C-alpha cells in the first residue's frame, strides 16, 4: 500500500478502537425499557 493509504488505515482504526467500545457500552447501559 502507498504511504497515504497506510496513514488513512492507521487513523481509521485508531478512531474505531476508541469510538466503537464506547458506543457499545453506552448501548448496553442505556437499554430502552
Amino acid at each position: 500500500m502507498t504511504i497515504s493509504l497506510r496513514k488513512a488505515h492507521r487513523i481509521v482504526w485508531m478512531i474505531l478502537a476508541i469510538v466503537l467500545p464506547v458506543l457499545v457500552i453506552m448501548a448496553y447501559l442505556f437499554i430502552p425499557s
Partner: protein
Amino acid sequence: MSAGYQAVLWNRYKKRYDLFLWAGIILYLAVFILVNSAFFPYQNTNTILIRAFGTLAILMLHLILAIGPLCRLNRAFLPLLYNRRHLGVSFFFVASAHAGLSLLWFHGGGNLHPLVSLFTSNTHYGSFVFFPFEILGAVAWVIFLFMAVTSHDFWLNFLSPVAWKTLHMLVYGAYGLIVLHIALGILQYENSPVLFSLLLAGIGILAGLHVTAAAREYKVDKGSVTVDAGGWEYVCRIGEIAENRAKVVVVHGERIAIFKYDGKLSAVHNVCKHQLGPLGEGKVVDGCITCPWHGYQYRPEDGCAPPPFTEKLHTYFLRLEGDKIFVQSSALPEGRFVEPLRLTESPLTTKEDAFFIGWSGDNGKRVTRRAFRLGLMAAGGALALALVFTFSQHRISRFQQDYDHVQILEGWLTNDPVPVLRTPEGKDARGNPVFATVLLIDALKHGAKELVTEALQGRRTAFVKITGYGLDRQFISCGPAERSTPMCMGVGIGAVPHFPILEIADGLHSITPASSRIAEPPRAAYPGKTVEVRGEIIDPKCYFGAMNPGEGKTHLSCAVRCISGGIMPCIKYEADGQLHYAVLVGEDGRAMNQAVLPYVGEPVRIKGRLQPLDNWEFFYVEGGIQRK
C-alpha cells in the same frame, strides 16, 4: 495471474478454499438451526434463520477483517489472504440472506413497500437508544453490495488499484455500522452480558490487530535514513539479506525492495501493481519477484511482468562499497532495465523456506496443511460460537398462530370500538351467558375494520360464523406473571376453543351469517374507572401470535407497520404484580392507530378509562400519550 478477464480464474487452491468455505457455511447454519430447533422447539423458524445468518455474517466479517493484519504480522496466514475476495463475496450472500429475511419478516406484508417501511417505521433518528438500528445494517449492506460488485479484477484495473483500495476501505466504516446495528438492536433486546462481552471482544481483537500492524508499518515508514548529496542511501550489508528475499528501505516516503538472488542484487518499487501488495515481503521464484499476496510476478532486473503480462515497476540503481549496499533515491521509469549488481561471494545454498503462491499447484504440503489447520481452527471456533449464541438467547419468540388448522367461531360481530367477535362460552353459576371477546385481524399486517364494516352492511352488530386462524393451544404456556393475560385466561372454558385473537382466513368469504342462539351481550360490564398506567404499546397479532412475544426494540418497526395497517394497538402494563393487556382506543371510542405510532415500542404513560369487555380490557385514552 491473468492477461485477460474471466469470471473466476479457478485453480486447485481456490477450488479447495471455496469448498472448505461453503462446507463451513453450511455446517454452521445446519448446527445453529438444528440445535435451536432441538432445544427451543417452539421458536419461530424465521427468527432462527435470521439469527443463524446474522451471527454467521458477523463472524465471517470479523474473520475477513482479521486476515489483513494477521498476514502483516505473520506470513503463516498468507494462504487465507489469497482467496479473501471469495470469502468476502460469500459473506455478502450470507449477510444478504439475513437482511432479506429480516426485511420481509419485519417490514413485508404491510401497507407500505418494505423498503419504504424500513426507513419510515421507526423515526427516532434523534435518539441514541431508540435509533432505528435496521438503517445502520441497511447502509452497511449497500457498502458490502458495492464491494462485492466491484471485487473483480476488472474493476480493480478500471478504477486503478489506489482508487479501488481506497474505496474498499469503506469496509471499515461498514464494520462500525454493523457493530452499532448489533449494539442498538439485538444487544439491547437480549440484554445479554455474553453477547455484550463477545461484541467487545470482537472489536478489541480486530482493533488490536489493525493498530499493531499499523504501528509496525509506521515504524518502517519512519525508519528511513538520510540520503547523501549524490542521492544514494545506505541499505544494509549484503549478509543481512536472505537469499531470494529482500530488504525494504524508505526513501522520500516510497518503499524500495532490494532483492538478493543468484549472486545478484536488484532494486524495484516495493508496491505490487495488482493490489498494492508488499513485494519486499515476497520471494524470487523461478527468477521472478513474486508478490506474497496473489503471486503476481516481475523480473528483478527491469521490473516487468513476464509476457504476456504487462505490469511494470520502477527500478533503481544500486551501488556496492565493500559489502555495503547503497540505492539511488531517484526512481527510474517503470520497466527500465538496470544491470544487476554481481556479488563476488557465491550464492548461499540455504534451505528453501516455505513460500505460498496461490495459483501454483506446487505449494509444499507444509504450507497447505498449515492453511488447512488455520481453516479448521476458524471453523471450529465459529461452531463453538454458534452454540454460545444459541444458549445465550433468553428471549425466544414462539410462532403461536396456528395456520395448519382453520378454526370456526360463532358469535356477535361488531366494529365497536374495534373489530371483535363475542363468542358464547357457556353459562356462569347463576345461569347467565358467558362470552369471550376475540380480537379480529386480517392477513399479514392488516386490520379487519373494513372487512367487518362490509360484513355488517350498516348494522352495529350481527351474529356470524367466522373461519380463521387462532393461536395454537399446544404452544400456550402460562407463567405466574402471565396467568391474567387473555392468552391464558379463557383457555379451556366451555366447549368452544378460546382465542384472544383470530386472523380471518379468506377475507369476506370467511364471514357468513349464522342463526343466533343467544341474545346479544351488553356492550360493557360497567362504565369503567379512570386510571393511569405505564407500559409499552404493542400490536396484539405479533405479541400473542406471529412473533410471540413481538415486543421491544427489535420489533418496534414491525409493530408500527401492523398498527399502521389497522391492527388495533394494545398496551402491555403491570398492575398488582401481574401483566395486563388492554386495547387502546380514543376517548370517544374511535381508533387511535395513527396517534400511537410515534410511541410504539417505548415506555409510555397513559391516563384514561379502563373498561373490561369479557376477557379483554379496553383503554379509552384521555389526554394523549406521555413518554415515561
